[in-house]
């Protein structure tokens, strides 16, 4: 996607240079271009400057300065997001929080960890491991993504079906509003008095405040975990098996699906031992005491067999279990082995429609002439179709964008939502017009204004403008019949 010309304001750059040491301020195109996108490469924009503060005082100073001069600020963690939430602003400062990477405290008795925002998700679990604890939400990018980014996106992961999203595992967030004012959300107690603003800030995609410190809840490592790999001859049967498991009253620790294209993509890297002949494999995990796990694995196996599983393999040891998950967690980037670029969408649908949705995607693959492996959080109905395309071919890019948009529209049509865990960012702005009516979007904007009246903190993300929705509505009328005649148009 085309990017706007960078607006360089010498007075802003000079003022920033007075606040930040030389190596903490990047302004030349040579240095700022590598920051032009996060994990979503479809949309790119070079910022006016990249700030890499090392002290909290520098963060506050940058925020105050930018606020005074009306300069947009976009916070960024590890830049692994898949929705463009950390896409820079052409006239703004990209505020990298990557240098705040210290773990401040692990409290074994309270089962909490307090960390700086640039700490990697997995680093928290590694630091807590000697105490027999870990941080449960585990996005696939957990090796690299930061807790600050997780708070911004309310990230999930393969184990959030049982253990909850970031929101359910964060106790307290301390940070700064756009004008540099200190704020704190939540508390160390299980509940805080007053409105639950923690729930508001978690998942706000860096639009309400800049996170400076996070206290997360840690949970005891289960005595045992085992994972079933179940093979299916048909994707729809695998989808139905997911619904059957949940209907049987089982809440697996993780319940994930890879279709054949996805397992074939990742196997050469992960050597996970996936059944490459199956149309789809389900990964279904049980954790707890050895007795609980044995009983649950037996129950799960029985339900899966009844749901037409053609083969069931249970991980024999921890190494094999981790291999099953390594394949799943590396599936997105493994797409690089098959195509120069991929577009991962995040629509979430009621579980009972998974089979039907996968069939629809197969039809779209033929229609758009692009392949689309599927690897996703089946237990949550959270799809991650990976549209593979060639980013050097404008026609291929356009088809990929249209393909992704149609998947999201179909998700909404089936009673679902456009995002499960990656956030809206820049990527799903159009589909927000389909999912929400104008009064709801206006209410979102009012919340944003309450924190950021001038609208300079991560502007242009998440909430589509009236104008954008009108444009999108027109395009869709031109492109064919309206998908949602019942929804009001603007």
């Amino acid at each position: 996607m085309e990017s706007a010309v960078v607006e360089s304001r010498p007075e802003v750059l000079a003022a920033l240079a007075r606040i930040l040491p030389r190596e903490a301020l990047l302004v030349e195109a040579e240095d700022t271009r590598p920051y032009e996108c996060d994990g979503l490469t479809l949309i790119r924009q070079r910022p006016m400057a990249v700030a890499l503060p090392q002290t909290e005082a520098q963060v506050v100073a940058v925020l105050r300065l930018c606020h005074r001069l009306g300069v947009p600020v976009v916070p960024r963690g590890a830049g692994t997001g898949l929705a463009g939430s950390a896409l820079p602003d052409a006239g703004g400062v990209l505020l990298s929080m990557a240098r705040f990477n210290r773990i401040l405290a692990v409290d074994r008795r309270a089962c909490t960890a307090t960390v700086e925002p640039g700490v990697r998700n997995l680093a928290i679990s590694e630091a807590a491991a000697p105490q027999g604890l870990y941080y449960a939400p585990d996005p696939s990018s957990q090796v690299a993504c930061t807790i600050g980014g997780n708070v911004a996106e309310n990230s999930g992961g393969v184990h959030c079906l049982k253990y909850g999203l970031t929101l359910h595992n964060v106790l307290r967030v301390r940070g700064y509003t756009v004008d540099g004012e200190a704020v704190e959300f939540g508390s160390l107690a299980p509940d805080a008095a007053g409105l639950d603003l923690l729930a508001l800030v978690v998942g706000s995609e860096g639009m309400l405040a800049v996170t400076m410190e996070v206290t997360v809840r840690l949970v005891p490592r289960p005595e045992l975990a085992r994972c079933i790999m179940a093979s299916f001859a048909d994707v729809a049967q695998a989808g139905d098996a997911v619904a059957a498991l949940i209907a049987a009253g089982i809440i697996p620790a993780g319940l994930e699906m890879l279709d054949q294209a996805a397992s074939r993509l990742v196997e050469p890297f992960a050597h996970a031992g996936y059944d490459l002949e199956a149309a789809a494999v389900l990964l279904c995990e049980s954790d707890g005491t050895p007795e609980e796990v044995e009983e649950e694995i037996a129950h799960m196996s029985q339900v899966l067999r009844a749901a037409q599983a053609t083969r069931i393999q249970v991980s024999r040891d921890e190494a094999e279990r981790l291999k099953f998950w390594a394949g799943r967690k590396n599936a997105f980037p493994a797409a690089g082995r098959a195509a120069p670029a991929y577009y991962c969408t995040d629509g979430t649908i009621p579980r009972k429609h998974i089979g039907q949705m996968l069939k629809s995607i197969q039809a779209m693959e033929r229609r758009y002439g692009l392949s689309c492996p599927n690897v996703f959080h089946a237990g949550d109905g959270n799809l991650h179709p990976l549209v593979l395309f060639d980013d050097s071919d404008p026609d291929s890019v356009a088809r990929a964008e249209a393909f992704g948009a149609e998947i999201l529209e179909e998700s909404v049509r089936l009673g679902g939502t456009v995002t499960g865990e990656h956030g809206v960012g820049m990527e799903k702005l159009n589909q927000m017009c389909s999912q929400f009516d104008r009064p709801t979007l206006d209410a979102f904007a009012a919340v944003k204004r309450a924190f950021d009246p001038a609208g300079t903190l991560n502007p242009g993300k998440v909430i589509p403008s009236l104008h954008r929705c009108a444009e999108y509505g027109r395009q869709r009328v031109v492109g064919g019949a309206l998908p949602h005649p019942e929804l009001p148009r603007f």
Partner: protein
Amino acid sequence: MQTELADFARQHADGPEAADILRACVHCGFCTATCPTYQLFGDELDGPRGRIYLIKQVLEGQAPTERTQLHLDRCLTCRACETACPSGVKYGRLVEIGRELLAERRPRGWRAQAARRALAWVLTGGAFAPLLAVGRLLRPVLPMRLGAQLAPARAAGTWPRTPRARRMLLLAGCVQPALAPNINAATARVFDALGIEVLTVARAGCCGALRHHLDQQAAAREDMRRNIDAWWPAIEAGAEAILVNASGCGTMLKDYGVLLRADPAYAAKAARISALARDLCEVLPPLVAALAPRLGPAVSTRVVFHPPCSLQHGQQLRGVVEGMLVALGAQVLPFADAPLCCGSAGTYSLLQPAVSATLRERKLAALTAPRPEVILSANIGCLTQLSGGATPVQHWIEWLDERLR
């Protein structure tokens, strides 16, 4: 990622290969987590994903400045990112090409060029051993750490001279025989105990890696051709393998085929050298059963094994040495951040001393946390870098050799 090669890059021998490597990168950022310099600097430009972008800009014809140079120079080429990369980006090769193109597009100043040439000359030529001897004499007046690292070498002991039916060549190396002459001799003794004769060829010298990583690609190819010529008669006479006991050099030997593929006179021979090159840990494991009865008890059984980046990432040989040590009675202690570089990285420790020293401190802290009696490793660079602390450091083959009876 797609790259629009500029004309100069399209015509360059390695330009299209670089574009192919770039195609595989999907910008996921998983690599940043395992990059030692990203951990230190927290700047995208000091991590693999940002450097890939910088190289892409050069390939696309944008004029690089000294800042692109700085960020590429800061890369250790440890290749931990390759192990982490799910889409199989050959970063190590890409950064080599990037550096070569950069040196052509934006030559270093004469001082830097002269320093690099002098460094290569000293380390690989005849001057190194005498200079080292002088340095060792001056130990009492040198700063403590440098003095500790110049500690006298373990004596090499005897080199077995019994002719054996099985014969293998050994890359003798350039700095290693002067710094730690016992490693090659220990290798020869352990293999002799297994009925394998280890041969060295006097005319073979530096594997070429030193010059290759100092912007002297043409001179590096000279090193490679000289070694090939030196080894060829022994190979034709039936040497089974070319053993390498310094994993950095092993990585280089395994790349001869790629690096000389455009040389009609040497391409085939270079490919054969790469096919014959073996780290010690690729040859010994099947012979463990034969070796065990020849070994006495170990002096130190509580060991940590620092896997050199060139072994675990460059050659993708992970866990092999550790498994063998356990099979031969060692208690191999786990330690944190094993995939991270110790900061040696060839001449990096001399060219980027500050980064190198920080990484050394962190690595030593991690290695000594489980309180080992000895730190074992498999590459002369790492062994030198980690020496000088409270815990003794040696090559694992020396640890085995001490137990021969």
